[in-house]
């Protein structure tokens, strides 16, 4: 009995020792998925739906570079103040905005979509191809109030979409 119990126990222990790192790696990639991360808290809680749905503003009204440039861009404070010198003044968030504006400080918005340095995503070619912003960013008009990442946007996700639409999957399209 004892003679074959020992190799059995050793085998089991080895199996568990091997399985642990494998599970850890799998769990890590699962829980580290960008959509699992809590959205960063912004210096000003900017409600997207109120601007896009209630105020009927186009995405491009604030993110002006999206059709011409790689970066969609964040609006200048002057653009916010265009409306907010008279609209909603007195609320706490708008007071913060006015403080930034009067002190001449930029708002340090927290980056929501983190891309590694070796990935070059270009907004303009995707938007000009005809994609709706919601394709990647979710429905910011009616559903998502505070910006968060709703799409995986890791390489597998990008490649799947590129294959589906016949876009190039050459490494150097994104990595250089």
């Amino acid at each position, binding site marked *: 009995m004892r003679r074959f119990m020992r190799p059995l126990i050793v085998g089991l222990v080895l199996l568990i020792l091997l399985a642990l790192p494998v599970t850890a790696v799998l769990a890590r990639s699962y829980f580290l998925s960008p959509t699992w991360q809590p959205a960063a808290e912004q210096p000003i809680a900017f409600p997207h739906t109120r601007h896009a749905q209630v105020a009927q503003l186009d995405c491009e009204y604030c993110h002006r570079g999206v059709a011409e440039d790689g970066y969609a861009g964040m609006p200048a404070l002057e653009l916010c103040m265009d409306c907010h010198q008279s609209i909603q003044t007195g609320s706490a968030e708008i007071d913060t905005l006015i403080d930034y504006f009067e002190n001449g400080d930029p708002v340090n918005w927290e980056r929501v979509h983190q891309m590694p340095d070796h990935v070059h995503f270009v907004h303009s070619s995707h938007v000009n191809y005809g994609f709706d912003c919601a394709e990647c960013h979710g429905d910011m008009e009616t559903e998502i109030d505070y910006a968060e990442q709703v799409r995986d946007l890791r390489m597998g996700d990008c490649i799947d979409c590129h294959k589906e639409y016949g876009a190039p999957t050459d*490494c150097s399209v994104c990595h250089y």
Partner: protein
Amino acid sequence: MSARWGMVIDLDRCTGCQACVVACQAENNIPINTEDIFHQRRAIEWIRVERYWEGEYPNVKARYIPIPCMHCAQAPCESVCPVYATYQTNQGINMQIYNRCIGTRYCAVNCPWHVRFFNYWEPKWPESLKHQLNPHVSVRSRGVMEKCTFCVQRIVRTEQQAQVDGREVQDGEFTTACAQACPTDAIVFGDLDDPESRVGQMAADTDRGYQLLSGLGTDPAVLYLKKIDPDAPEENGHY
């Protein structure tokens, strides 16, 4: 999209001023090479200017030759990479994919021109230079190979702009950093497959063109134009 990017370097115009080297370092976020690093032969220079002395004193002549990556059609570096981190794009560029590279350095060993460089250290810049990094080029980390990309970031950008405007990429619309900085216009960059392009015409019209180490049969995309030397003995009616 079917361009075959290439370069013509006229050695008769090159003065060895190293402007191309500096421009390349600035454009491509190449870490600063110190004297110490040079002595260790670990300097990173995507393009370098080699100097040769010719003749006996007092009739000595300095000869300069800028050497970027040759972007060979049959590249010896590509076939030895175990992880396919280097490959030929359909536009004839020999690309290095940093996030795929595991740093075996086989490619550098197999490159006869010594134009592949390994990051032995994490790149560092003085505080004053940190904000001048080019945002369109990745900063390579320790342990990966890097090399001349023919300024692929400029190619991609121009192509994307052309796509947005709904037109083809024009010849001379953009150029590489080295060609842009060259004060004597010795380096010309463009589409070798386009007979109307400037490089296409230069390559077709010249009778002093040669490729560096062409005997290896790797078909480089960089064509050199021989220096015109009035004192040289005539051979076969050429220069």
